[in-house]
């Protein structure tokens, strides 16, 4: 989230699209009801189903799964056409006036530089025109045909309301009504907030869906302002923390990049990360990259990291491919290329697409270790449960070890919420049986592996032997020790650069912010964005003062928000060019002539002159981007792309299947189905009654939603002869499931390009373990197709067929 949960109460209009906040984030959704109750805010829901969010919405429109970009580009087109643009914001805080290279272009749904062979774009042309001074060329008059504004206008021109209706199945009058409601938020004193989740990310063009809305929010001047923003609702408790501390195969903590094979030494690695400003006076904060990276490596290797050995850069892994994520690992496993798999807090047998392929992959492992508080389906993938897990146990030779872990309530630590708040929690119960904390288990494994290397040697022992392991109990690092390590500390006395006599931070002390990090090895910090979470004043994450003097939902003394306890990112953009808040009623920060002051921590140097320094300090431009340069693999503008399995052809280019640069392996390409055999569009989702695959182990949750079902329209039920509450079989080109049928008017057939499209809704919560009735999940059916940028599987739009089933699936 750019903003925070509590800030949603400041909004005038909530649009829930690509998510279902009431359903999947009911506790956070309270802030929507607060906004409605106290500010008279309106709520729009755009979703294939009339869902729980829609049940309390002011306006609802249906949309065909996988067509969001067309809808969003349509809204942008409408706003431009009807001059619903916050001009002061757009002119000053975005790259609207920047000139783009002459050779950049877009045609037939594709951008320049596509190579069909490698399924990749050569992004050479996706760049600004850079002047001799190293700065971007601009045209403040917006007359130059190569300025972003004119390219954007041309790009969205095709997305007329008629086009939107044809592609999305959204009735034109509903689409236009929503455009009008959104358009009202282009004034400085009205804001819209976007709440989205996996409804946008789980597509082969998920990141572009989000880009689409972000661009609309920029057009309306809604980024960085109270009640505005792009608010990703994180689906797992602490999944925000997971990405923050770099539990991705291509990241290291704080969103730093894992080195690649092509970056053999630290200086090569740093050479592409200078991040020099592209406009005068800009902060371009990533210029501090070296400080963050060196401090990370000092934290990692301790005294072993020296200037001479490049701070231990050699000991970091180097990627030979873009990433070793689940998609790739499971594909490798299925080919027998993986021997051992540690599965920690993850239940891929229910959560990853193409379950059949996964079972096959796990069956080829030698050892599977599952660390989880619950007995997961993954740990029991070899058990035969009739139709619910139809495997031949005797033929599976994989050894499975289950290491029971504590659950969140049995351990202390911080959980990072969607609003980037690190909220400390304390141990509330003692774990049952022999369960241990994940830290303890991993520390034990590490110590034993280390001992083996010490005693027996081995290939490349340095990464194991050189790790700094300064914990009081080497077999059980505590949450406090790890939190302090993430925060960072001074390794030597840190002196004032202007006055070497003044010690700003004595050696050994915790630092209070990432501004104190240095690139000379005198500071350590495992995750620069967490700096400030555990300072010399103690555990900032454990703060529980819920007062809010400004009434803006800032709650500055409740826990700690990264970065720097800032509650709203880009909040400098909540003020005009002179530093006056766009809306005097809603003040986060303001310029008092000398400094930025206000209830929130300014997202800019406190003395930065508002007329000189742009609000988007992480970008070298200092502005935000309508044109995203080379940062997205599938284009600098979002363009409509069909799902890989779609009932209709892409009107922009009928020969294009899915996202031309999305990730898909050969085998998975062969597993795709087509609409002649699978005419129905399936989409997956969560239900309020359950949390993923955990709560089916809890009787109370199981009671409130006991059995796997799929949702279909009355029209489809009639067509197929399916009874409400009857049993159905749903199958795709990858597998089949049996379910109960919820026949509802909340799903309606849509008409796209003259074709009637039926949607089958498939919730995710059932498996063959736990207290609920045995069932299936959509992952048996979904395709292994990864988003081009973030590799999320395309769970929200794929093709299936359905028929009534007699009995079926008897365990």
């Amino acid at each position, binding site marked *: 989230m750019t903003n925070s949960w509590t800030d949603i109460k400041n909004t005038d209009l909530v649009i829930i699209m690509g998510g279902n906040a*009431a359903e999947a984030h009911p506790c956070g959704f309270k802030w929507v*009801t607060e906004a409605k*109750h106290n500010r008279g805010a309106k709520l729009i829901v755009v979703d294939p189903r009339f869902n729980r969010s829609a049940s309390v919405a002011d306006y609802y429109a249906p949309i065909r799964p996988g067509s969001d970009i067309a809808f969003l580009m349509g809204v942008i087109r409408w706003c431009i056409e009807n001059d619903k643009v916050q001009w002061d914001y757009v002119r000053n805080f975005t790259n609207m006036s920047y000139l783009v290279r002459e050779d950049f272009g877009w045609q037939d749904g594709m951008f320049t530089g596509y190579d069909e062979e490698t399924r990749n774009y050569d992004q050479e042309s996706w760049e600004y025109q850079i002047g001799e001074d190293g700065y971007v060329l601009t045209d403040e008059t917006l007359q130059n045909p190569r300025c972003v504004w004119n390219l954007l206008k041309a790009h969205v021109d095709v997305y007329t309301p008629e086009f939107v209706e044809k592609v999305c199945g959204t009735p034109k009058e509903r689409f236009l009504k929503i455009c009008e409601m959104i358009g009202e938020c282009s004034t400085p004193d009205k804001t819209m907030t976007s709440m989205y989740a996996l409804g946008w990310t789980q597509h082969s063009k998920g990141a572009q869906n989000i880009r689409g809305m972000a661009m609309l929010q920029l057009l309306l001047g809604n980024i960085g302002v109270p009640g505005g923003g792009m608010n990703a609702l994180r689906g797992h408790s602490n999944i925000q923390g997971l990405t923050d501390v770099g539990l991705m195969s291509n990241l290291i903590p704080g969103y730093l990049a894992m080195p690649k094979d092509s970056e053999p030494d630290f200086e090569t690695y740093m050479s592409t990360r200078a991040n020099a400003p592209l406009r005068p006076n800009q902060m371009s904060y990533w210029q501090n990259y070296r400080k963050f990276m060196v401090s990370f490596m000092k934290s990692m290797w301790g005294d072993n990291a020296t200037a001479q050995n490049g701070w231990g850069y050699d000991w970091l892994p180097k990627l030979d491919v873009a990433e070793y994520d689940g998609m790739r690992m499971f594909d490798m496993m299925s080919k027998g290329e993986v021997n051992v798999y540690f599965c920690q807090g993850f239940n891929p047998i229910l959560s990853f697409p193409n379950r059949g392929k996964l079972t096959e992959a796990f069956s080829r492992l030698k050892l599977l270790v599952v660390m989880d508080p619950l007995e997961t389906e993954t740990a029991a993938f070899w058990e035969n449960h009739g139709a619910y897990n139809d495997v031949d146990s005797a033929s599976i030779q994989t050894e499975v070890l289950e290491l029971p872990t504590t659950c969140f309530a049995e351990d202390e630590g911080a959980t990072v919420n969607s609003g980037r708040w690190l909220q400390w929690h304390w141990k509330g119960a003692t774990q049952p049986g022999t369960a241990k904390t994940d830290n303890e288990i991993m520390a034990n494994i590490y110590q034993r592996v280390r001992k083996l290397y010490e005693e027996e040697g081995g290939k490349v022992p340095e990464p194991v032997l050189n790790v700094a392991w300064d914990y009081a109990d080497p077999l059980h690092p505590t949450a406090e020790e790890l939190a302090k390590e993430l925060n960072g500390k001074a390794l030597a006395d840190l002196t004032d650069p202007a006055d070497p006599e003044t010690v700003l931070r004595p050696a050994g002390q915790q630092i209070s912010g990432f501004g104190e990090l240095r690139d000379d090895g005198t500071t350590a910090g495992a995750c620069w964005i967490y700096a400030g979470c555990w300072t010399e004043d103690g555990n900032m994450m454990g703060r529980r003062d819920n007062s809010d003097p400004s009434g803006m939902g800032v709650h500055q003394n409740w826990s700690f928000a990264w970065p720097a306890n800032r509650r709203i990112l880009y909040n400098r953009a909540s003020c005009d060019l002179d530093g006056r808040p766009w809306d005097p009623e809603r003040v986060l920060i303001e310029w008092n002539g000398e400094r930025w002051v206000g209830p929130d921590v300014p997202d800019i140097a406190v003395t930065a002159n508002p007329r000189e320094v742009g609000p988007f300090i992480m970008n070298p431009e200092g502005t935000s981007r309508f044109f995203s340069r080379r940062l997205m693999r599938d284009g600098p503008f979002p363009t409509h792309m069909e799902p890989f399995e779609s009932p209709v052809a892409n009107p922009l280019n009928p020969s294009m299947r899915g996202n031309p640069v999305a990730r898909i392996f050969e085998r998975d390409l062969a597993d795709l189905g087509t609409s002649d055999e699978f005419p129905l569009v399936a989409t997956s989702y969560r239900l309020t009654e359950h949390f993923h695959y955990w709560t089916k182990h809890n009787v109370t949750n199981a009671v409130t939603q006991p059995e796997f079902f799929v949702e279909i329209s009355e029209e489809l039920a009639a067509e197929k002869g399916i009874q409400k509450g009857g049993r159905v079989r749903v199958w795709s080109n990858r597998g089949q499931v049996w379910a*109960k049928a919820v026949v509802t008017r909340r799903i309606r057939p849509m008409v796209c390009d003259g074709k009637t499209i039926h949607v089958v809704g498939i919730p995710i919560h059932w498996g063959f373990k736990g207290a609920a009735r045995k069932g299936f999940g959509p992952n048996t059916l979904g395709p292994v197709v990864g988003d081009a940028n973030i590799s999320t599987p395309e769970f929200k739009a794929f093709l299936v067929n359905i028929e009534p089933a007699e009995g079926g699936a008897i365990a």
Partner: protein
Amino acid sequence: MKDLAPEPTTAQANPPVQPMESNLLPSDVVRVSATSNVPQPERQLTKVAKLIDVSKCIGCKACQAACVEWNDTHPALEENVGVYDNPHDLTPEMFTLMRFTEYENPQTGDFEWLIRKDGCMHCEDPGCLKACPAPGAIVQYSNGIVDFISDNCIGCGYCVQGCPFDIPRIHKTAHVSKKCTLCSDRVAVGQGPACAKACPTECISFGTKEDMIAKAEGRIEDLKSRGYDNAGLYDPQGVGGTHVMYVLHHADQPSLYAGLPDDPQISPLVQGWKGPAKTAGMAVAGLAAAGAVLHGLLARPNEVSEHEEQEAEVLVDQGGRDNDGGQA
């Protein structure tokens, strides 16, 4: 001496942590089932109410889960029968339930998904209490809470007939009637009901009835501004008002919400049965018995004479024929 716990005025109320005495005393009872002369209470507690703002409800069932947890009930794991309502009905182990209704609004042409939390309404004039034959099995406190006292309950099911809202359910094995208590045990120690505390959207709120009516008015105004011209408060006067109230977008048609009664009142049959019939029946039976006794004491008994015995002998001797050879 421990203090009495404060009367809670919000669902979020957290009482002080030091031990406190229950503030819902036996003497606060104003009505008791099958008991006519309840002593006048020494004090009048502030009337409380739970307000359920249907327009804010997202049907998440957190209230159901909280209810199960707090009351330590064990509802059965049922099947999916094609709807979201689970369990499918109130049970002795499930005191509250989200009921989902799909509604096509003919005025606007818009589809609506109406979700109502069902459960005891805590009537000011409770039909269950009126129907109950067991003294002390149902009580009403002066703050409006209608509570079932299981120790006194005999499981007859008369409350089922008495309730205009179809709420009480008889436990199959414990043989006592069960329903929402408005968390009387929480209210007694200064806390709001568990469901209201758990509700993520504050669709369920709790406080004094006066405050809740005022809050409802604000909500109704908001709903009217959003085009729900018939928004209103459901506080049915047919049962003297209720201590669980709804804000409805369509207050003109409560029955849209999964059959919420449009104009609930204690059935005249129940009124008659527990009123005139009870008195008249006792009177008639008593009078008849008394009359019989009196008649027996005062009137000459109907006795057989010796003469008749002889007549019988003669008749039998003659094979049933009279002396005069009459009838045979």
